């Protein structure tokens, strides 16, 4: 990992940083040291404050309180440009590249090499090639970035940062969209940078990566610093406990349940991808009454497409979907909901909630036909039924007529779950249901899922979080490149097995 060190010195120190957005405390007196020439990992759940802290160090946000010391001097970072002048560069998770510009143009965007005649294209391309070679990459500097694989785009973003003086390189969730092979070459690059004296801040919630690449780890929870250690002294279990503040087994208290007859069956679902290839490649599965099945896979593995196909959103998919013994492929979403299928979508804001409606109206949205005859609504019955459901799933809201936007992420998710329950579902499809909600709400949501399963509802959920899938599912399907590459019972599932089966390259070799 790194040569033996005595007491490492720090290059940058954030001291007592607090940040308040509106009325929300995002960071509360956090200290964070960036050691010189080391990989400084920063971990925490969604909403723990990682991105805010990095935004402050990169000059995007200004702290409400606290100060930043660089090389012994206090610095003011009022803009990303300020931070850049001090050699602090941030690579965003979304990379923020221009897909229709070339590799060289992207690397020098905003800092073009000028001569009297305009931009020196040749020189930019020459330097771009050099930079990419430094990272061990061979890419045509004239290739359009949009045509490159995500891993190669990541390298372009790193080159962009390296094209100028860089002392602190912040990488925000750099591997979230990468394949295993791409992750390995990224790690090689990171090690090379560190050897050259660059101080790296590495943000991730993937523990296995932190143990592999990190030198130091800092854990944030709810905007506070909860732990700091050298990676050699700890293990992944230690990180999990600090991250979630309790034993992970306690987070997902599992109770075995009997599994009933199959409720949902899919046979040979195949969905072509617009640019060639397949989103879904002959996917078959069954889900029994009272069973919780988790679908694990990386981004782009086809998890969301699978659930969208099952609910009837992807009508171009071929293959059979059988719900309660009846073939439903070819039926509309509404018809499938009427038969007892419901999808809790991945993106609450974009696909789940109608923000202009109240909590009550959001809950009843899919059940309006049952609330009266000839299209007129029985408003009292609506209030009564919604009120019962809202208490049932524990949405924290004083009055169901409150706007749904006044709820926290976890409570908003419960509103969507309540909407699903109001339709009296037999099978619940949940696309990454824990995304972006806090630990407490996660535990509650998991309890609700267990209770529903106990009542005989079949639940098919997806996740890209190993801990969630291992903790919650009775049975796990691993997807990669549109296929189910592995099926594991709760007993035989291990994180290693899931990681191996989700590797898209393994699929290619098999194919």
């Amino acid at each position, binding site marked *: 990992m790194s040569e033996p060190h005595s007491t490492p010195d720090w290059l940058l120190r954030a001291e007592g940083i607090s940040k308040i957005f*509106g009325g929300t405390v995002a960071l509360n007196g956090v200290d964070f040291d960036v050691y010189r020439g080391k990989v400084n990992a920063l971990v925490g759940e969604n909403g723990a404050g990682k991105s805010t802290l990095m935004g402050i160090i990169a000059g995007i946000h200004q702290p409400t309180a606290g100060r930043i010391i660089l090389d012994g001097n206090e610095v003011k970072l009022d803009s990303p440009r300020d931070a850049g002048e001090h050699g602090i560069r941030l690579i965003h998770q979304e990379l923020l590249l221009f897909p229709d510009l070339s590799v060289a143009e992207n690397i020098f965007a905003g800092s073009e090499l000028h001569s009297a005649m305009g931009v020196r294209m040749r020189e930019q391309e020459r330097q771009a090639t050099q930079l990419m070679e430094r990272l061990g990459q061979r890419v045509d500097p004239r290739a359009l970035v949009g045509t490159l694989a995500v891993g190669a785009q990541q390298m372009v973003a790193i080159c962009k940062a390296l094209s100028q003086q860089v002392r602190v390189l912040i990488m925000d969730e750099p591997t979230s969209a990468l394949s295993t092979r791409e992750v390995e070459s990224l790690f090689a690059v990171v090690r090379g940078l560190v050897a050259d004296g660059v101080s790296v801040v590495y943000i991730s919630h993937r523990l296995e990566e932190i143990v592999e690449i990190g030198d130091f780890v800092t854990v944030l929870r709810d905007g506070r610093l909860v732990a700091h250690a050298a990676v050699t002294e700890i293990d992944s279990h230690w990180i999990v406990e600090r991250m979630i503040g309790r034993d992970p087994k306690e987070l997902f208290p599992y109770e075995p349940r009997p599994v009933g007859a199959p409720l949902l069956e899919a046979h040979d679902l195949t969905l072509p991808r617009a640019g060639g290839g397949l989103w879904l490649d002959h996917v078959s599965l069954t889900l029994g009454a009272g069973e919780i099945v988790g679908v694990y896979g990386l981004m782009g593995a086809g998890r969301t497409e699978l659930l969208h196909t099952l609910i009837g959103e992807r009508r171009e998919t071929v293959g059979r979907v059988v719900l309660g013994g009846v073939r439903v492929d070819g039926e509309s979403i509404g018809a499938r909901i009427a038969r007892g299928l419901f999808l809790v979508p991945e993106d609450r804001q974009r*696909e*789940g909630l*109608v923000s*202009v*409606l109240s909590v009550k109206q959001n809950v009843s949205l899919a059940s309006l036909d049952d609330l009266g005859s000839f299209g007129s*609504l029985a408003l009292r019955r609506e209030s009564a039924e919604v009120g019962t459901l809202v208490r049932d799933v524990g949405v*924290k809201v004083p009055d169901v007529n409150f706007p749904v936007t006044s709820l926290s992420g976890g409570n908003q998710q419960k509103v969507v779950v309540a909407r699903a329950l109001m339709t009296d579902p037999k099978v619940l499809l949940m696309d990454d249901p824990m995304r972006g909600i806090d630990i407490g709400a996660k535990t509650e949501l998991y309890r609700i899922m267990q209770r529903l399963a106990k009542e005989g509802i079949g639940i098919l959920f997806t996740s890209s979080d190993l801990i969630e899938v291992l903790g919650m599912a009775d049975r796990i399907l691993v997807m990669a490149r549109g296929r189910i590459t592995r099926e594991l019972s709760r007993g035989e599932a291990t994180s290693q097995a899931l990681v191996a089966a989700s590797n898209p390259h393994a699929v290619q070799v098999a194919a």
Partner: protein
Amino acid sequence: MTAQLDALRRRVRSSAAEELLGQMKTLHGWRSLLLRLRAFVALIGIVIFFSGVSPAFFTGSNLLVMTEHVAIVAIMAIGETFVILSAGIDLSVGSVAGLAGMIAGGLLNNGLILHPLGIVVWFNVPLVILIGLGVGAGAGAINGVVITKLGVAPFIATLGMLSVARGFADLRNNGATFPNLAGDAKQHNGGFGFLGTGSLLRVPFTIVLLALFIVVAVYIAKRTAFGRRVYAVGGNERAAELAGIRVNRIKMGVYVISGICAAMTGLLITSQLSAAFPDTATSYELTAIAAVVLGGTSLFGGRGTIGGTVIGAFVIGFLSDGLVLVGVSEFWQMIVKGSVIVAAVALDEAQRRRQSRASASASSLIEEVMSSDRPATQE
């Protein structure tokens, strides 16, 4: 809502509850009420102002006349409200009104001439009105199909219909008017004038009709599944779709409603004038949209009320008539109207920002209050 909060306060004596209560008060306090009812406040202001300037303004007869003027635009604007609530727009309403008027005028004066058979079919007035409304529904249905099946943006689809419907209105009598729609005793089709000039229990029938449209529209918007779905589609189409709502049907529905309301406006104007002009209701779409927006309906969809639109129509109508009454030049009227509309939308934006800020900060408080509330509810 306030009752629940009071109950909450009695149970929870935490600072968070107090703070939440304070925020809810600002959200529902008088200042915010004024902001939400700004169109109504503007209306009262207009009435007070013009009553002071001109003694003729606040008289029973003038108010009735002005309300009749308002009704014509308001009915069209009610239909437009459904379209805008669904996050669409209907630019064709003025032309559809003109076309419906011309169709009705032609049927009253000449009947339906079936050329190959060489016979003329005559319709009585209720049937003529139904056919006129049917023309509006048909134009709306075509808008709906073009938007949902061909995937053309509402702005473009209805801009096309604006031109097409006006073209057909002109073609109907080669650009000429159908004058003198008194009907023919022989064909039993007299009495079309009642629609626009008759009265029921001394209330002008136009105003009765407006009341009827308001009641039905409010019922549809507030008390039917269709109405709720219109709000949902306008608020978040994707979410509506995944909740099993047939989004295309809802969209078809709103354009058909808008077409019917536009046709009703066209028939009213035609009846009041007792003549069908091909350029009837030209550029009324802008007045209708202005009334909707003044009434607080968001052009992004999902937010707004029928009542607001009606008040918006009153503001525009009373403002124009008042300016006429005090002898302000027509050109100044245009400037005043335009400014009022832009100011209304600017206020709307301000309110939206205020509300979303309040919601955001309320969310953490609600969480706190509800958590501390839990032990209290178990007793």
